[in-house]
């Protein structure tokens, strides 16, 4: 790791002002991606602003039909949280199959979505549930927030403070886990909103990052059941291909994971 200067912020405002003072600052949430990347010397921030001790970024609130998870809440705290389990159990499940126990104690939802890894799990949940990303400056719809591989709508020095999820009628998430990294080889989040809209998002599949899957949404809108997806064809064009799976394999995984997610959602 190259030299860096570490700062611990005690409030969002302090973090913003510390960030502005560095020549090339980075925010540090749980560090489960940023630190490995810095160790590989793929990132060399002049200053690291630790958000881990900021109380206003911690916690979960359920208010009516909106579940709000503050950005600094760890995976462990999310999967254990009674409101998450009650309101959107699919998010608790998604979190329980993310990383490993030690990673789940440290990693945060804000860190995950700010990084927007093309195989990360949370982006699929945000996109399928129609979530809103709250920052210190504004609110951003999930659709507008995720802008391709490792790219988001966040501006320099902007901090995610929370994610708000409308509570759906039903939702499910299933993924093919990469056995070593535990990232999604492909994962699919399906949701039926309280107004009857069906939204489906796949992660780990597209070369452009997390994506909606309109063909599966249409099939499920007509008939919410795993068998409704049998006749859907997913095109392999623009899907990821690597040593772990071809684009055709991932295209099939989108279908199969969607079917399993619908079965899980009930």
């Amino acid at each position, binding site marked *: *790791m*190259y*030299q*860096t*200067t*570490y700062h*611990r912020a005690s409030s969002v405002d302090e973090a913003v002002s510390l960030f502005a003072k560095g020549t090339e600052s980075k925010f*540090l949430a749980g*560090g*489960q991606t940023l*630190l*490995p990347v*810095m*160790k590989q010397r793929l990132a060399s921030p002049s200053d*690291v602003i*630790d958000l*881990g001790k900021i109380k206003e970024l911690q916690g979960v609130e359920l208010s009516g039909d909106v579940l709000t998870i503050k950005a600094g809440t760890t995976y*462990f705290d999310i999967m254990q949280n009674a409101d998450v389990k009650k309101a959107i159990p699919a998010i608790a499940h998604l979190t329980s199959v993310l*990383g*490993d*126990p*030690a*990673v789940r*104690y*440290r990693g945060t939802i804000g860190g995950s979505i700010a990084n927007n890894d093309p195989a990360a799990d949370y982006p699929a949940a945000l996109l399928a549930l129609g979530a809103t990303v709250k920052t210190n400056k504004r609110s951003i719809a999930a659709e507008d927030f995720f802008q391709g591989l490792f790219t988001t709508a966040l501006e320099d020095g902007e901090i995610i403070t929370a994610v708000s999820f409308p509570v759906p009628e039903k939702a499910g998430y299933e993924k093919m886990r990469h056995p*070593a*990294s*535990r990232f999604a080889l492909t994962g699919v989040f399906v949701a039926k909103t309280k107004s009857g809209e069906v939204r489906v998002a796949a992660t780990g599949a597209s070369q452009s990052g997390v994506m909606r899957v309109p063909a599966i949404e249409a099939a499920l809108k007509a008939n919410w059941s795993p068998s409704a997806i049998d006749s859907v064809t997913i095109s392999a064009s623009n899907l990821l291909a690597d040593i772990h799976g071809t684009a055709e394999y991932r295209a099939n995984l989108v279908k199969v994971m969607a079917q399993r997610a619908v079965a899980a959602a009930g």
Partner: protein
Amino acid sequence: MSTVKLTVNGKAVAVDVEDRTLLVQLLRDHLNLTGTHVGCDTSQCGACVVHMDGKAVKSCTMLAGQADGANITTIEGIAKGDELHPMQAAFRDNHGLQCGYCTPGMIMSAIDIVHRHGGQLDETTVRQELEGNICRCTGYHNIVKAVLDAAGRMKVSQAAE
């Protein structure tokens, strides 16, 4: 350079380190607590697992500064004098190690697993929960046996306290 103040195995310490120092480097290079190992250095293998405020974390994936003010327990801090921790004893009795490189991390993760699951541990749960710890010798069979054995022993010793 910054001064990191933390409690390690019950002792308060203050260490001057470069800001880029990882927690595992502070433990091994500055405090000479070399029981905590560095295996993969990429957050995969779990040889570096220690407890921070009671939670099993990968000390190669934390800056030392992030642990400022925390209570850290390493493999050196779990035995009571000459009496091994029940998890250590169970690993020995069940031949839960061969080369031993992964063992400190395995034991620290396993103690956390037992704390979280208490008496509800079964083989499947242990295998799932140990996914962040890699062993290249044993095939995991005796490690799983050791964790289940220790879960019983820890329950008995907790009940006795």
